[in-house]
């Protein structure tokens, strides 16, 4: 894309050229017995000329000798191509080489004319048009037109252009052939972004994957990480169902207990992506191995994703309008018992527990059902409007984009909206001086609801509710069950979730973000470029939360006898200054490029919250000073300083060597541990360039790669863990007047030894392009060991550390696996199609936890029944509990089984697997708990296909993962009629009617009881489910109106499409959704009624004016 763009730019630039470069510059060359190509390269080095040619029709491998002394270019070229069929055309600095059109002169000749354009209708200049199998042909002119005369009949024309797929067209009896060339996006000539620069894909020695972003503008979604889902090997992205929710992105596994999020670089500057609009993205390149990432040093251990926003293109003003709109709903509901079924089950449970059945449920048949899942959910909607205007000339290119995006969630009272303005400019101030800017402003407003939360999660509450109770009372007020229901049966913790969502979520969160990247680039001497980039990020946000005075449920502390008015504001700033010097030089067959740079960052974040309670008015919105207000604030500062360098050496176009290194300092660490050094090296061999591979005709390009390097991570920890600090707390009271006195308490016990987490990564891989660029294959083996994990190690309380934790570097984690991806472009007559697929395997293992410190047990909050443990020799965050062994069917079975105190037939049986002496001891005890599975998949994959036929196009994306486990905490509620959180009863699945009710009735669901039988609900494999799934993430069918038609309407192109997101999901998981987005690696895969991913139907249109 970039190259094509440069050519376009050059083409237009030439129109305005005042003086002719070729007539004012002279060249001296003295080369003997070298290829013509070498000569061309030499000319490019010694002058500002550059050549455009198609190596398949222009013979540049021919050996030549040339001697010129201060001659004009025309004289040099005449000498060079003397006696060949090559002709040249000089357009200022650009020189196009083509074969001579020949005159066959045999009378059967015919002429063909036509125009070549790209898919957006822009004419393409300098496309080579030749007779297939010959060197006869021409190139297109500035308007994309060509004409060929004296052609033989029944031949085939070959249209080729750098960066685009070559097309063959049979002449037949046609006299006019218009051709649309498509981007060869997977081509090896494509340029990808690497740290602080770009590189040709074919010359890459590291592991970098470019993610297709073409479709981003058409797929409903608010964040750009959506593009990663299923589209890149080595990258796992898990959707978050919340409106405006961001996916959890993991590159090559989970390597720390802390922050595993990749480093995002947006237009050269590191930062968050929440403010970015998906359709404003031009490209995303994922840097995966240490060779690619080490240039980002201490921030690179989790991988780096380089995002480039869209730039304008020189030429005619282009106006684009993208609109989509649609509906969304949850794709699955749990099959809960209706009122009749529930009442019958509740009565039975009461009888079993020796309770009197609730008189209100005497006649189950007469009860009316409320579907509480329906009550808390609704059909949501999505909308997106994007207008962009772009264009430019040789001096200035510019793009302006305006977007409004709205997502009304599927759970009531949740929504998200965002406005985004993007303005990108590039200004060529002088021949050697360029300035550019990329500026975004966005504003989002959202309302969120509690989910994935055992005590007040919306769905969680909904499934527990008694189905015979209405949402509203007859008078329209909320039905507060506690006020009406008999407390013996009623679960004191559950509350009407609709009322709860209504009362507790009257707040809005808002966020404004300005993000700017400004650069100046100066060509100092030939080959030496100086670039200075300033990144500015300024954001402010906050929330307003007005909770009215109400009484919903006084016992549950959900009552609010006083209203509260909370306002919070926050402000963040970050400045990054990057200076780089880039030098590249070609000497003969040796190419050398050196990058040196420095980067400094300064950031700050401040927030302030204020709250007033007990306003006499429920309408008043602000915590005015007349009310008793409380305010507080805090903030944090950050500083970092870095030096980095890269050396890239390419020899004979075959051997590629690259060294990267970076020194990083962070103010987080003590001065003697402040600097970290992160070197890497890689080597690649383009084996296909070797002579012995020439005969293998189906291989276009084959490259073997290997790399090793060191990267770091500091983001797992906040603050300044190396210093002991004292914080002020106002909590001691003295004196007859009981005055509060400020107190100092240790806030952190500093550990001066704390330093970066460090990661060593090895990578081997190959890239292959086969069958005339139609098939690409890429494979990698990776092996990375992250050590010195930054963790807050629990210490004995005798240490008196705040929170009983001290920050340390402890532990070591291994991630290894294989990535494989392939794509194929093909066509069958008019039907063009492409398929790409990728798969990544993951092996995650904790090698050490840093000596004797115990950091291997994390008990779920509010939950003493199930552990998630991180232990040596196992993957991070495994589930830990008992193994069930069916249900005790009779007394004999109990007496013949390992001892479980107090059980009776119908109770759950557990396996005796261990005891204090390391062998089964006939007693079910804590020793019998074991590892029950990992939330990390064995592999994940994506399959994407697309095709077009005449005016129709379609695309489909499948994503999936295999072998991970989910801890489905909701099973504790939906299988247990005893309320999970309190006494009383709560609703259950229909399936619970198959509970054990006598010998042989059930071996999975224990007997129904109104009492809580702890034994039956111990943390066990009962809660662990297979989380594998295959999901059709997106299906899209588009129709492009015929050009003739839209042109008449004054439009360039118009395309309508329908898109279905999450159309189907194949999974055995019984909860709402198998995609469990949780950024905390030691709590991942825990589903406690998370916000489910919805199914979205949208209708959209893309219009180009």
């Amino acid at each position: 894309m970039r190259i094509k763009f440069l050519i376009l730019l050059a083409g237009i630039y030439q129109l305005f050229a005042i003086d002719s470069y070729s007539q004012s510059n002279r060249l001296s060359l003295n080369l003997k017995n070298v290829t013509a190509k070498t000569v061309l390269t030499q000319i490019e080095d010694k002058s500002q000329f550059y050549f455009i040619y198609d190596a398949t029709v222009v013979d540049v491998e021919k050996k030549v000798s040339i001697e010129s002394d201060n001659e004009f270019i025309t004289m040099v070229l005449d000498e060079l191509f003397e006696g060949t069929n090559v002709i040249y055309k000089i357009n200022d600095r650009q020189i196009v080489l083509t074969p001579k059109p020949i005159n066959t002169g045999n009378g059967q000749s015919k002429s063909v004319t036509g125009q070549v354009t790209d898919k957006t209708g822009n004419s393409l200049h300098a496309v080579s048009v030749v007779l297939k199998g010959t060197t006869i042909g021409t190139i297109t002119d500035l308007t994309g037109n060509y004409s060929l005369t004296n052609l033989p009949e029944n031949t085939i024309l070959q249209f080729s252009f750098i960066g685009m797929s070559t097309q063959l067209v049979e002449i037949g009896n046609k006299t006019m052939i218009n051709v649309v060339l498509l981007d060869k996006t997977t081509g090896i000539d494509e340029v990808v972004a690497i740290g602080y620069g770009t590189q040709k894909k074919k010359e890459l020695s590291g592991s970098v994957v470019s993610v297709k972003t073409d479709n981003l503008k058409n797929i409903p979604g608010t964040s750009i990480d959506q593009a990663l889902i299923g589209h890149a090997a080595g990258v796992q992205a898990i959707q978050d169902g919340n409106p405006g929710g961001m996916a959890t992105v993991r590159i090559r596994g989970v390597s720390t207990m802390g922050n595993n999020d990749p480093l995002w670089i947006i237009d050269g500057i590191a930062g968050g992506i929440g403010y970015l609009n998906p359709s404003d993205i031009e490209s995303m390149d994922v840097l995966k191995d240490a060779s690619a990432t080490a240039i980002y040093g201490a921030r690179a251990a989790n991988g780096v994703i380089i995002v480039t926003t869209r730039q304008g293109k020189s030429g005619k003003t282009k106006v684009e309008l993208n609109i989509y709109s649609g509906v969304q709903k949850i794709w699955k509901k749990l099959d809960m018992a209706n009122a009749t079924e529930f009442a019958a089950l509740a009565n039975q449970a009461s009888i079993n527990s020796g309770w009197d059945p609730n008189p209100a449920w005497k006649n189950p048949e007469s009860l009316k059902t409320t579907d509480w899942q329906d009550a808390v959910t609704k059909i949501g909607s999505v909308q997106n409007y994007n207008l962009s205007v772009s264009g430019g000339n040789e001096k200035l290119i510019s793009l302006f984009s305006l977007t409004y995006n709205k997502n009304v969630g599927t759970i009531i009272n949740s929504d998200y909206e965002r406005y985004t303005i993007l303005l990108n400019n590039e200004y060529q101030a002088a021949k050697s001086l360029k300035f550019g800017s990329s500026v975004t402003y966005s504003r989002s407003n959202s309302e969120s609801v509690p989910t994935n939360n055992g005590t007040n999660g919306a769905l969680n509450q909904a499934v527990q509710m008694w189905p015979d109770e209405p949402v509203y009372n007859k008078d329209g007020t909320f039905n507060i069950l506690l006020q009406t229901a008999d407390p013996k049966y009623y679960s004191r913790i559950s509350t009407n979730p609709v009322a709860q969502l209504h009362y507790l979520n009257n707040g809005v969160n808002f966020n404004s973000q300005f993000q700017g990247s400004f650069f100046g680039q100066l060509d100092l001497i030939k080959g030496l470029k100086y670039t200075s980039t300033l990144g500015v990020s300024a954001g402010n946000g906050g929330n307003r939360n007005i909770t009215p005075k109400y009484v919903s449920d006084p016992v549950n502390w959900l009552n609010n006898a006083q209203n509260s008015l909370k306002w919070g504001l926050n402000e963040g700033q970050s400045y990054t200054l990057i200076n780089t010097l880039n030098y590249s030089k070609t000497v003969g067959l040796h190419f050398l490029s050196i990058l040196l740079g420095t980067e400094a960052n300064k950031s700050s974040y401040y927030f302030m919250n204020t709250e007033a309670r007990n306003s006499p008015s429920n309408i008043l919105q602000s915590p005015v000073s007349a009310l008793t207000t409380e305010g507080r604030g805090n903030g944090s500062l950050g500083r970092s300083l870095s030096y980095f360098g890269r050396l890239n050496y390419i020899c004979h176009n075959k051997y590629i060597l690259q060294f990267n290194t970076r020194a990083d300092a962070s103010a987080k660490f003590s001065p003697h541990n402040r600097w970290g050094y992160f070197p890497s090296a890689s080597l690649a061999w383009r084996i296909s360039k070797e002579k012995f591979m020439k005969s293998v005709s189906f291989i276009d390009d084959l490259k073997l790669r290997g790399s090793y390097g060191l990267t770091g991570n500091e983001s797992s920890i906040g603050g300044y863990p190396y210093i002991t600090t004292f914080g002020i707390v106002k909590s001691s009271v003295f004196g007859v007047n009981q005055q509060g006195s400020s107190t100092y308490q240790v806030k952190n016990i500093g550990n001066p030894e704390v330093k970066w987490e460090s990661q060593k990564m090895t990578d081997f891989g190959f890239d292959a392009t086969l069958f005339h660029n139609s098939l690409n294959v890429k494979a990698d083996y990776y092996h990375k060991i992250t050590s010195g994990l930054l963790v807050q190690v629990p210490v004995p309380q005798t240490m008196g550390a705040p929170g009983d934790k001290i920050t340390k570097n402890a532990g070591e984690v291994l991630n290894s696996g294989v990535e494989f991806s392939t794509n194929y472009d093909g066509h069958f007559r008019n039907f063009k199609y492409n398929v790409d697929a990728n798969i990544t395997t993951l092996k995650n293992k904790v090698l050490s936890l840093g000596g004797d410190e115990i950091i291997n047990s994390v008990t779920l909050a509010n939950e003493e029944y199930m552990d998630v443990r991180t232990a040596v020799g196992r993957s991070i965050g495994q589930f830990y509990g008992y193994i069930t062994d069916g249900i005790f069917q009779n007394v004999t079975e109990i007496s013949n089984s390992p001892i479980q105190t107090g059980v009776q037939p119908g109770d759950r049986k557990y396996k005796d697997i261990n005891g204090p002496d390391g062998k089964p001891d006939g007693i079910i005890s804590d020793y019998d708990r074991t590892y029950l599975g990992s939330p990390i998949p064995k592999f994940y994959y994506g399959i994407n296909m697309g095709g077009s036929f005449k005016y129709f196009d379609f695309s489909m994306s499948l994503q999936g993962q295999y072998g991970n486990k989910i801890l489905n905490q909701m099973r504790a509620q939906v299988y247990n009629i005893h309320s999970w959180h309190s006494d009383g009863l709560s609703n259950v699945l229909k399936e619970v009617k198959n509970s054990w009710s006598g010998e042989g009735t059930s071996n999975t669901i224990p007997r129904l009881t109104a009492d809580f039988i702890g034994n039956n609900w111990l943390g066990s494999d009962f809660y662990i489910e297979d989380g594998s799934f295959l999901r059709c993430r997106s299906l899209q069918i588009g129709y492009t109106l015929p050009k003739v038609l839209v042109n008449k309407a004054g439009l360039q192109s118009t395309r309508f499409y329908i898109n279905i997101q999450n159309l189907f999901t194949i999974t055995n998981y019984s909860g709402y959704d198998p995609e469990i987005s949780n950024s905390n690696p030691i709590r991942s895969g825990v589903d406690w009624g998370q916000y489910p991913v919805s199914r979205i139907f949208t209708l959209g249109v893309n219009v180009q004016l």
Partner: protein
Amino acid sequence: MIKTIFMKRTISISFLSLLFVFIACKKDFMNIVPLDAVPENSFWKTKEDIDGAVNGIYSEFLSAVMGGTASTAALPTNDFYANEIQDMWDLITLKFTANNGQIYWIWSTCYTSIARTNRVIARTPKMPINADYKAIKLAEAKCIRGYFYYTLIAAYGGVPLILDEQTATSDPNPIRAPIADVLRAMIKDFTEAAADLPAKWDDNNVGRVTKGTALTLLGLTNLYLEDWNASIKCFEDLEALGTYKLLPNYMDQFKYSQENTQESILECQFSDTPESNNYWQSFFGPRDAGDAGATSATWGIFFPTQKLLKSLEPGDDRRKQFLTPGEKITLPASNFVYTMQGEGKSAKTDVVLTKFWVGHPASNNLSGQNILMLKYSSAIMYYAEALAHAGRFADAYAQINRIRTRAKLPNKAVVNDLETCITDINKERRIENCFEVNGFWYDLTRTKQAKKFLKEQYNIEMDDYKYLFPIPQSQLDLDKNLEQNPGYN
């Protein structure tokens, strides 16, 4: 041409120099400090620093009192019923598990506080401030360190003896010191503290530990050491201070309008600000109070048993701390008049302990009422205990009768028998220290009367090992050198 080249060079040079600009300012650039805390190298300089650090020690009293030090001292006696909270029930049923949150709380708050005192004790001597002032502040820290060690040994027996400032490089696996070592360290702390602490603080500093606090605790420590004469000496010194006296009425100690009275030796200072509230009023207030119109809802967690009520001698003025069906109470903070209902409607036991229930209408049912941690009446009974052990029964009974007289009860005749005398002392404590911090259970365990008491009063068999609580499991997991108390494995 030359000009262009020259200009180019100028631009280049200026750009290049920009490149290295921030290298020059590197030193300052990286020096940043947290906004919300004072780094250690800027701390321990001024009087305000030491004041703040010492005040910070006191704040842990609030957690200790609200957490385990009262509940563990009351519930194992079985004199109380606890609603719905499992950890509380386990204390009543003597199911002392290593995972019990209340038992853990003692360990947690004590060591948190001890670490704070250790810092003050380590850093204060080197501070460039007035030596007399430093001595007082050091004495406060030592007295409080001793107090928390007392709480630890009363609950667990011998514990790790940490007397140094702890840093990231300190031994993370300390061993349990023999109880005698801990007691000796306490004696040293209290002796030094008693020497430097004032007998009385000025009006702005009331609530801090005093000479009397240190002497009382020193006397108590000597009881654990069974050094009866040393203990007697402490209480004689306490009497000699002349600072303390018994208030005319038992209930005066808990008056909402009156705090830090002459009977108060150590008192946890709560106030009406949200950070220093106490929530006991809602733990002891009956559940139906809110429905009856009290402005603050109450949770009704703890109720005295009928047995406790029946143990009162007729005419005991301390009966006023209990409310039974039909009786009325005017809540002092809100003037709300509440009439208790019978048949378990207000309280499962039909008895309510009223001394902590003030009816303060603050949000979340909190109040600013102080809670007594050590009171003169307790000191009198410790004194009596020491005298009894020393064989001075007449003197012991004289002390017991001071308490009885205040309770408007007739004097007890002197019995020259240690067992009887201790039983008589404990009988007063049962009522006098009803649900108080470091209260009756610890008196029963120290005097080895717990087993007998539970058998006689509630017909409960208690295993001997339960005289000590188990070491919290989380700490055993973290500190590999820590050993569990016998009987709990």
